[in-house]
């Protein structure tokens, strides 16, 4: 369906009364051509703003027919008279006008919107298809009904510099009210059924030719049905490919049970790994290693005190006077020449080094320890 937005006109002719009759056949527009013409949806190249030019109808456009319903309008469209219908009285709707705007003996539906602009719906090629006409009117009236109740703004005065539609020759017609979603008259077509079946089969098997239909050329019932069949077939194919089967309740329970069991097994293995995956346990500091380390520490610390005594010829009064202080060792002076060094194990047991009698364990270490075995 073609929609052409045109500048507003302030001097739209009021609707004239309809007069039944037929216009003389002086129109160049052939009814056969109109009958064969596809709906305007396919023929028109989308919506475009068309600057209306000043036109004058070559012939005076009078109300030559009146239609008070879509059926009558469709009947008029199927008339054999090529140029029988130029203007149709479609009833009383104030903001809907039907005129022969292009002076081509065709029919246009014009609606003045709130901004005062004209919206033109070209009917000249739709007259051959009764359902297209009904659909066109239904769409138009649906928009009109959505605007029902709103205040209609006044039509702005026509500006001289703006292109306007010369409407002196046109007659305005009021359109009847058409319910929204009016059903299209259906006429079963056996050939079409076969075509639909073939199209559906082609869509299912994936052999549908991309050139089988051209959206830009769809305008007839057959083409639309063919499109619909192809779309349905494509949808069925997609569903067949990507259908996700829903698992039953029993299957879900089994899977949940299996997953839970494996999780529990994983936790058990993490807590108590089996021997075949458990490598050699890492080394630990034993009690003997700890005691040996304490004794070596006391031995080394005593060396620092002896070095202090050798330099200063006296014992240090406290550990702070010693240059090297090993951690965890306490100095206790028992006399001017004797002292003890005390350290503790992790269990709190005291290990004592007496400078007067160090003990056999310290002597043994002193014999083996690398720093003392060559010394005293």
């Amino acid at each position, binding site marked *: 369906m073609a929609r052409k937005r045109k500048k507003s006109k302030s001097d739209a002719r009021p609707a004239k009364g309809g007069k039944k009759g037929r216009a003389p056949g002086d129109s160049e527009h052939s009814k056969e051509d109109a009958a064969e013409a596809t709906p305007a949806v396919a023929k028109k190249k989308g919506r475009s703003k068309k600057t209306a030019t000043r036109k004058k109808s070559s012939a005076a456009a009078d109300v030559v027919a009146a239609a008070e319903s879509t059926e009558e309008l469709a009947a008029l469209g199927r008339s054999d008279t090529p140029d029988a219908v130029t203007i149709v009285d479609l009833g009383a709707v104030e903001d809907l006008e039907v005129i022969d705007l292009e002076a081509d003996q065709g029919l246009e539906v014009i609606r003045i919107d709130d901004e005062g602009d004209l919206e033109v719906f070209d009917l000249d090629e739709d007259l051959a298809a009764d359902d297209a006409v009904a659909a066109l009117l239904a769409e138009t009236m649906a928009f009109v009904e959505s605007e029902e109740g709103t205040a209609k703004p006044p039509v702005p005065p026509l500006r001289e510099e703006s292109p306007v539609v010369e409407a002196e020759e046109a007659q305005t017609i009021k359109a009847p009210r058409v319910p929204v979603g009016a059903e299209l008259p259906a006429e079963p077509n056996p050939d079409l059924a076969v075509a639909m079946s073939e199209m559906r089969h082609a869509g299912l098997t994936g052999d549908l030719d991309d050139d089988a239909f051209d959206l830009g050329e769809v305008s007839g019932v057959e083409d639309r049905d063919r499109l619909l069949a192809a779309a349905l077939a494509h949808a069925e194919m997609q569903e067949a490919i990507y259908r996700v089967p829903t*698992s039953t309740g029993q299957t879900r329970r089994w899977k949940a049970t299996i997953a839970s069991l494996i999780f529990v097994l994983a936790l058990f*293995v993490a807590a108590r790994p089996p021997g075949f995956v*458990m490598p050699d346990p890492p080394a630990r500091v034993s009690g003997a290693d700890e005691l040996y380390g304490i004794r070596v520490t006391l031995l080394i610390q005593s060396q620092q005190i002896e070095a202090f005594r050798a330099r200063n010829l006296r014992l240090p009064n406290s550990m702070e006077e010693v240059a090297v202080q090993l951690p965890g060792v306490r100095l206790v002076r028992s006399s001017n020449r004797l002292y003890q060094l005390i350290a503790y194990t992790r269990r709190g047991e005291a290990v004592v080094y007496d400078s007067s009698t160090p003990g056999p364990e310290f002597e043994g270490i002193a014999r083996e320890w690398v720093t003392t075995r060559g010394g005293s």
Partner: protein
Amino acid sequence: MSPRAIGPVSVTTGDVLIALAFLAFLGALAYPTVRVRAFRSLVEDVSSEVETMRSAAAGVFSRDGRWPDAGAPSAIPSELAGAFSGDSTLARDAYTLQWSRWEVVDYLPPPRASTPTPTDADAPPDSVGPRLVAVIRDVGAIVVHSGNDALLAALLARHGPAVSFVRDTTWTLTVEAPGGTSGG
């Protein structure tokens, strides 16, 4: 493309749970091995850095005749800065290195000198003998501070108790001077 060529791909929540559980099971099996590998790598890293410090300290001793000055934990002594050129500290994620230096006193007999010949009863008693002479020398030590007991134990086992020992959260390695002596 024919629809038959592509089969439906269906993965339910139960399948995902089973796969996750199986992955968790495999992870539990592999975790001990992964931990051991990581620990062995840590021990190798520590040993490598200890060896680097020891080599650098031995080089300083050979050049200057003395061990580098002792430093605080994680501090790099100035004489050893060349060995750790890319680092500003000796602190690592799992351990900290420290260079230390001790003194050792050796009591040695005095140099042999001419002894007077006893004449008669004026000979001094046997209890009075020559005094031992204290000789002080330095020894170097590398200290590894770590809260990982296993790491300390591994280092003790690697180097032996004759040159290293563990005390609280430290492992100490005594550095021998080139030539076998500990210093002087």
